[in-house]
C-alpha cells in the first residue's frame, strides 16, 4: 500500500489520505474485506497527526468505502458497483465542466467539441 503525503499541495492532509485510499479501493488495489492499517499505526508511520488520520478514516466510513469493526480495525467495505459507477460519473462530470469552461473561453461550439471527441474515439 502506498500513501504519499505532499506538504506542498494545498490539499489538507486528511483529504490526501482520503482520496488516495478511496482511489485504491475504486481501482481494486484494495480488495473487499482487506484490513487497513490502524489509525495510530498509519499516523505514526507517516509522522502525521492521529486526529487527521482519524478524520480521513471517518470520512471513508461515512462515504461507505470502509467499515470499522469495533476493537478489530477498519476493513474495506463490500464493493458496491453502483457506488463506483456513481463515483466515476461524478468525476466525468467534473472533467466535462472543465472542458466546457475552457471551450467557452476560446469560443468552441458544442458541435466542434463533439467532433473532437469522436475523433479521439476513432484514434483509439
Amino acid at each position, binding site marked *: 500500500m502506498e500513501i504519499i503525503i505532499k506538504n506542498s499541495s494545498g490539499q489538507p492532509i486528511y483529504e490526501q489520505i482520503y482520496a488516495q485510499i478511496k482511489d485504491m479501493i475504486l481501482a481494486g488495489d484494495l480488495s473487499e474485506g482487506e484490513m487497513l492499517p490502524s489509525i495510530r499505526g498509519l499516523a*505514526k508511520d507517516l*509522522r502525521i497527526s*492521529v*486526529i487527521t488520520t482519524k478524520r480521513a478514516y471517518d470520512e471513508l466510513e461515512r462515504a461507505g468505502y470502509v467499515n470499522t469493526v469495533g476493537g478489530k480495525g477498519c476493513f474495506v467495505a463490500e464493493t458496491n458497483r453502483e457506488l463506483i459507477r456513481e463515483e466515476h460519473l461524478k468525476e466525468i462530470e467534473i472533467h466535462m465542466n472543465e472542458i466546457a469552461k475552457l471551450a467557452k473561453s476560446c469560443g468552441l461550439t458544442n458541435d466542434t467539441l463533439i467532433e473532437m471527441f469522436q475523433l479521439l474515439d476513432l484514434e483509439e
Partner: protein
Amino acid sequence: MNAIEMKHVSKTYGSFAIKDLNLTLPEGCILGLVGENGAGKSTTIGLLMHAVLKEAGEIKVLGVDNTSKEFQDVREDVGIVLDEAYFPEVLNGRDVNKIMKYTYKNWEEETFFRYLTQFGIERQKMFKEYSKGMKMKLAIAVALSHRARLLILDEATSGLDPIVRDEILDIFNEFTREENHSVLISSHIVSDLEKICDYVAFLHQGTLVLHEEKDRLQETYGILRLGRKEAEDIPKEAIAGVRDNGYYKEMLVKRRLLPGNYTIERAGIEEIILYLARGEQI
C-alpha cells in the same frame, strides 16, 4: 479521557501572572506548548505536577485532581524531563539506575540500559562529563523507563543539534503508538514541535493565545501575497494578519472566507502563530 485538563487556572508571581488558563490534552495525543522565554511554560508545567500551587481553577492529570491524595500515585505514571535540571553531576548512568529503582515502582532496568545503549551513553561516565544533549538523553531515558503514560518535557529539545533532536522526536512519536500514551512538550522554537504535534498551544505573557489542532490551523489559514492595490479587494474578515514590506503585502488569510482564484500558499505553524500573536496586540 483527557491526559491533561486545566480549567480556569490562575497564578501570580509579582508582576507575572498566568491568567485563566484552559488547557486540555486528549489521551493518545501530543500537545506542543509554545511560547517565548518567560511566557509561563515552566510555571504551567509546575502547576500541572503540583510543584507550583495554583491560586484558582482545577487541574487534572491522567484523570486525577492534582490536589488529591491519589495524585501521589499519578506521579509514578508521569515521565518528566526538565530544562537544565538534572541528576547530581557526580553520578553516572549506573547510579541513576539504582536510585530510580527505589523511586519508581514500575522501574524497568532493562529498558533503561537499552535506551542508554541506543543513545550512546556509557554507563560508567560521570554526568558532569556529559554534553547538554547527553544530559537530556539521560533524563529522557529515565522518563521512558518507568512505564509512564504521560511524558512532560520542558524545553527537552532546546540546545540540541538537529540530528539528535530528530532522533528524540522520533522516540516521542513512537511512544504515542500506544493509545493511552500522551505527550506534553514545550519549546520556544515552534519548528521543533511542528513535526510531531497533534495539538499546538501558544502561551504569550501568561495567557493562552491559541489552542488548536495543528492540521486544522493549516487548513484554516494560508499565506497570500498581493500588491498593495490588489490587497484592497480582500474582504476584511478574511484577513487574520498583515505584513507590509513596502513592495507587497503578505497576509495570513482564512481560506474559507476568501473568494476563489487566489493562489494561497501553505503557512507554516510558526508563521501562523507569529501572525496571530501580533494580531492580538494590535
